[in-house]
């Protein structure tokens, strides 16, 4: 079983949904970003998405665009992203919390999918969520990910109908990520009804856990998603808390890291307050 499978099995045994937290690697700088990464599990994250900053994040709203720019400006690279994960596994001894790399395919393509997968797995990465690699192009990555024991979490959207879903699910492993709104990250939020309907629809096609993201900002929204899905994914709202902890020169204020953890704890309380059958 992969780390992601084990984590979802544990969540099921605990009769609750999980909280997936997104941060951009290297935002606002490598040091602060690592401090946040290291403390995420204790703050209540069940799975971690580590965003690989990219110059042209076409599916991201302003918050994550700016986070990527801060990280790149501070010198973030693919190698340093792997280093963060390696350090996390070594220093925290946390061998249970899955870490997924999230981002855009070009960074993987440039290194070569085979080499990238090997290096990622060796660093302690568990899988990928790639915004611009739909099933039509996923053959470029899937065999190498599988060979390195990495899960590929594919995205489904409200526009992914029942006819198309099987094609997406064919490439999905670990869990399925349902993008709950039409749009970029951090803009709109879905209604609880819409989340329920879509999660039920996806579950008719797969036994994989379903994570739901886009537009979750409050513990109440996270709880509403947790009532229907196997995990709630929060990204932009966390990034906004990182940004709120920067002074006007872009340097981290002392309250940045504790502020992010306090917010994640509130989200986790929201998610954990929902008892599942």
């Amino acid at each position, binding site marked *: 079983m992969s780390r992601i499978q084990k984590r979802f099995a544990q969540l099921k045994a605990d009769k609750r949904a999980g909280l997936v937290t997104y941060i951009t690697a290297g935002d606002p700088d490598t040091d602060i970003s690592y401090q946040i990464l290291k403390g995420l599990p204790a703050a209540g994250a069940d799975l971690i998405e580590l965003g690989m900053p*990219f*110059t*042209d*994040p*076409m*599916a*991201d*709203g302003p918050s994550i*665009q700016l986070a990527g720019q801060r990280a*790149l400006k501070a010198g973030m*690279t*693919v190698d340093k992203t792997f280093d963060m994960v390696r350090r996390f596994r070594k220093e925290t001894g946390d061998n249970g919390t899955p870490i997924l790399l999230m981002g*855009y*395919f*070009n*960074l993987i*393509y*440039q*290194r070569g999918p085979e080499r990238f997968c090997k290096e990622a797995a060796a660093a302690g990465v568990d899988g990928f969520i790639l*915004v*611009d*690699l*739909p099933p*039509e*192009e996923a053959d470029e990555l899937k065999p190498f990910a599988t060979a390195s024991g990495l899960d590929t979490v*594919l*995205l*489904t*959207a*409200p*526009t*992914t*109908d029942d006819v*198309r879903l099987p094609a*997406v699910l064919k490439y999905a492993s670990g869990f399925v990520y349902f*993008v709950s709104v*039409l*749009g*970029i990250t951090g*803009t*709109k939020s879905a209604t609880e009804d819409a989340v329920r309907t879509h999660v039920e629809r996806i579950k008719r096609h797969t036994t994989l856990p379903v994570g739901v993201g886009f537009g979750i900002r409050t513990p109440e929204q996270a709880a509403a998603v947790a009532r229907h899905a196997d995990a709630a994914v929060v990204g932009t709202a966390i990034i906004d808390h990182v940004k709120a902890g920067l002074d006007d020169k872009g340097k981290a204020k002392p309250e940045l890291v504790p502020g992010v953890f306090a917010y994640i704890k509130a989200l986790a309380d929201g998610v954990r307050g929902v008892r599942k059958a």
Partner: protein
Amino acid sequence: MPSAPNSFRTGPDERGHFGIFGGRYVAETLMPLILDLEKAYNEAKADPQFQGELKYLLSQYAGRPSPLYYAKRLTEKLGGAKIYLKRDELNHTGSHKINNVLGQVLLAKRMGKTRVIAETGAGQHGVATATACALFDIPCVVFMGSVDVERQAPNVARMKMLGAEVRPVTAGASTLKDAMNDALRDWVATCENTFYCIGTVAGPHPYPAMVRDFQCVIGEEVRKQIMEAEGRLPDTLVACIGGGSNAMGLFHPFLDDPGVRIVGVEAAGRGLDTEEHAASLTGGRPGVLHGNRTYLLQDGDGQITEAHSISAGLDYPGIGPEHSWLKEMGRVEYVSATDDEAVEAFQLLCKLEGIIPALESSHGLAHVMRLAPTLPKDNLLVLNLSGRGDKDVPQMAERLGMKI
């Protein structure tokens, strides 16, 4: 180099690939919409009524065919090849962009879309889209880098007069690449009612093939016109390349004529030895951006680097995927011209032929100035004069130190 195919004109394959280039690297949200678009386009392409309507608009509204003009004074001055100018700058709205836009907006109507978005660099595609949307009474939003809004002010005013909303984009270097990012972001949120009218032979499949098909009218006319004028096919074709739509439109109908030498001219900005250029085929390598795999300017990790060109329309770090393939197959030569060379060419054409060319097209002309003198007098050379320079008048006046 891969072995030459029987034909260079059969691409892309059913998955939108030209060799390793092209494809559909887009968010899942858009994927079903792109499949719909492909289906709708294939149906429209085979529908005589659609083709008839497009043909009517191209002739009665856009003014096609554009003339193939023998540039006698330019030919004499350069002292080599016999130079013809394909006068696509005479089209309604002032460039070749209208050829593609009329096709796409007709398709948008046919698909029942109620809103059109576009990205623009120099503003030529934006103006063409705003024009077609006025004609068809469809709301239109054009994304344009804020730097380009500044340097192409006349086109911004034109778009607004035509009823379009212009959204300045301030991310990144605030040029064409960033405009395309924001257009894609808008589209993800609005795809159910919105048609994204891409201005060049790039983006996810079917755009590169669809835009090419709409632009091929340029090369098809040239074939006919040169036969009438000279009784034979041309020897040399030259066109400037940003994304590469005017070049593809001229080149594609001649790809299977081995006697025709084909040259694309990228923007070398301040020089290929600097980091300030936009020559992705010369200075880049294959990567994935904006829905397709193609040559891109990028760093070792794959972060996209900023392009630079004096011409807003060429200021893009990528290129259409079919051009990348034609480069690898060796069928088309790709060269470049600097900002300074383009400015010199701009001035030459103004004074010799009484034609003010767009700065984009001036890059093609700059290469003709190098190439033509090396060719024999019976070499028939066709340069695609893809746009007129009215939009560049304020910028050039300032550069040349004129008070206006």
